[in-house]
């Protein structure tokens, strides 16, 4: 894959994914699953793992995966975003797996990744807390050594699929440290003693969030305790690039639905899509979505190639997607008029995903600042 084009293989892969997701995640299924606490269909999860190998896409072969890059994972996520799939996939693949790959020792990867690859283990990354910060400085949960055992104290919040994950990858810090110092990743079984999980009332019901309180829960270190800052930063960038791809998938689906409705709806004796006021909005939507897609694709390729400019590029893509997805959702509702504000119309499902994704991992302003702080990497980099 280049930064500007998909390969024939990637296109074929996308087509298979789209067909599969249209089958397993029509809006009726989204509506069914979003009302449930677990928020996903285990049978579909098994098929994703076994038939399509999605849970193992970017896991290297030596850990039981298929050894594709983050570029392929981005294609998977774009299609899932389009279908609004209710699934712990982003938490497992984009967050927990990348964190393990970035932070884990050889032995830890051999222990943890095969179970994720087969789909047996649903995992998530618990890094945010009730202070709502997306950076390392927000981590207050403390890891203490108790003889040979590490124990966690503190409360994580906004944990994606935290209520159902079998494996929690937790970011904590050594006592008395702050900022980027003293950080450590740990793994804890979701059902371990001393772990109390509470589902949060998420405004976007297609994406489940949990608060997780750790009261001396026993934890296994992942990588070197105290040295996790770099691996965490890298994980966040990769996740931001991946989320941007998921978001543009959803934005494009909304945009298409707005065009379809403008072609269908008749007022004043004409299809509303024949009015220039509608056409111009729809043309602007196309522009906004295509620009965000270009940024997301570029970021995915940069992540796949481990480009030194990724800190700027990933932030650019996430900032762009945050604005484009939400604006597209707002305009899609507007074009639908009154029906667009009803529960029965599907637009609000994507609107809510647009809203939660806008904020998740940091909003537009957050990423614009991150981009500016790292812009020198863009200037230094040679774009090819």
């Amino acid at each position, binding site marked *: 894959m*280049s*930064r*500007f*084009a998909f390969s024939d293989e990637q296109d074929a892969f996308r087509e298979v994914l789209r067909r599969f997701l249209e089958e397993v995640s029509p809006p009726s299924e989204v509506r069914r699953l979003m009302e449930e606490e677990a928020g996903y269909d285990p049978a579909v999860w098994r098929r994703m793992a076994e038939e399509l190998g999605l849970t193992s896409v970017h896991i290297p072969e030596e850990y039981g995966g298929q050894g594709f890059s983050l570029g392929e994972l981005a294609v998977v996520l774009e299609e899932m975003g389009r279908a609004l799939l209710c699934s712990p996939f982003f938490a497992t693949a984009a967050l927990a797996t990348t964190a393990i790959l970035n932070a884990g020792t050889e032995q830890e990867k051999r222990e943890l990744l095969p179970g994720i690859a087969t789909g047996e283990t649903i995992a998530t990354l618990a890094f945010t807390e009730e202070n709502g910060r997306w950076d390392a400085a927000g981590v207050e949960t403390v890891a203490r050594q108790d003889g040979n055992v590490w124990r966690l104290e503190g409360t994580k919040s906004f944990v994606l699929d935290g209520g159902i994950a079998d494996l929690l990858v937790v970011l904590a810090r050594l006592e008395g440290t702050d900022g980027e110092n003293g950080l450590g990743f740990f793994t804890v079984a979701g059902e371990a003693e001393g772990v109390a999980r509470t589902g949060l009332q998420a405004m976007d019901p297609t994406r489940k969030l949990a608060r997780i309180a750790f009261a001396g829960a026993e934890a296994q270190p992942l990588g070197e305790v105290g040295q996790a800052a770099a691996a965490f930063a890298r994980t966040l960038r990769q996740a931001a690039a991946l989320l941007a791809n998921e978001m543009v998938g959803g934005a494009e689906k909304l945009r298409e639905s707005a*065009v379809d409705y*403008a*072609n269908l709806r008749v007022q004043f004796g*004409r*299809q509303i*899509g*024949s*009015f*220039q006021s*509608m*056409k*111009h909005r*729809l*043309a*602007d939507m*196309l*522009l906004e979505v*295509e*620009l*965000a*897609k*270009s*940024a997301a*694709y*570029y970021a995915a390729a940069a992540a796949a190639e481990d480009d030194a400019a990724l800190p700027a590029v990933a932030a*650019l893509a996430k*900032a*762009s997607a945050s604005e484009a997805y939400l604006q597209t959702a707002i305009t899609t509702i507007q074009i639908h008029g009154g029906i667009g504000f009803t529960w029965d119309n599907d637009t609000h499902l994507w609107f809510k995903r647009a809203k939660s994704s806008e904020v998740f991992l940091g909003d537009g*302003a957050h990423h*614009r*600042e991150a*981009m*500016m702080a790292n*812009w020198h990497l*863009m200037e230094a980099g040679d774009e090819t």
Partner: protein
Amino acid sequence: MSAPSEETVRAEVRAWLEANWDPSLSLVEWRGILADSGWGVPHWPEDWYGRGLPQALVPAVEEEFQRIDAVGVAKVGIRMLAAATLLEHGSDMHKEKFLRRILTGEDTWCQLFSEPGSGSDLAGAATRADLKDDKWIINGQKVWTTSAHHAQYGLLLARTDWDAVKHQGLSYFVLDIEQPGVEVHPLRQMNGHASFNQVFFTDAVIEPEFQVGELGEGWKIATTTLMHERRGADALRSWAQVSQAEGRCYEDARAEVVTVMEPYKWYPQRAGRVDLVLERARESGAIDDAVTRDEIAKLMIMAKSAEWTARRARAAQLQGRPQGPEGSLGKLASSHVARAAARVHTSLSGADAMLTGSDGERDGVIAEILVSAPATSIAGGTDEIQRNIISERVLRLPKEPRTDTDRPFRDVPRNTVS
């Protein structure tokens, strides 16, 4: 017949250049040799100064020229649109008379389409061509005509039938500009430059053999010209580089660039000069102001993603894939970029944004951005027309009901041209 390989073509052009390239020739002499060899426009037909090569091989040929700094045929301006249109719709006499002198640069051309009364609505042209004593007599006015003041010929769209419906009443002509019935006046723009002209016709004369295509086919042929204009828009800017080496041919070529590029010298400012933004913000320290910084970030995101979108469109083209929506968005994106850049440059200038010329920032360049940016969303099709095109051709939305295509053109309401 299958196309030759790139290696074969490169070897051939290299050998030919080795034997023929001579910087001591005059520009016109050299281009004459080049035109006759077919290497100047290798994608043109073999009968007409080309070698019938596929378009995809042209960059390889151009690279061989650049490798030794050999000067190519004349390409800038309307001349290539004229050539493309004549190759497709012109008679053998037209091709004989015009094509070679287009390539040598001896003749300059202009496009006589837009009128004061028909801008976005080009097919509403009301300049008239009336047949009198076996000659076409032209009356009316054209506008936004680049290079008309030094052009020899114009591509003219004029109305020959007022009883036909709008698009069927137009015909296409080659007009000799250098005649008493044609008056050219510069059109001064709000930024002070005069890159365009107004052209007035008072009983100007066209011999019947200089009609292009059939009577009433003018709109169809104009569409060919416009299509080439859109395709070629990028090529223009990359052209204006001539080696600084010595030799008559180079000297002539450098002089030509100065003349030909004169109308375009404010175009970089029109596009917003995003390249100056960070440099200026760092110099003044404004980069650390939270509000300005966020505005700059938004601009950089827009500019970068517009650039990447254009690259996606080109990549799809190279892969031989059908053009996706990304190919139609460049013009609209550039308007957004220019507007946002002008806003950022204003806030970076502060009070100095009120000054121009040598009192203005960067010797007036910033002021020129501010007063040129509005052109971006108008020239070459307004943003509104772009949005119509995108929504109708890409998104396939229904056309707006029209009241100008169901009756003779003479009954269609139109502007009263003063």
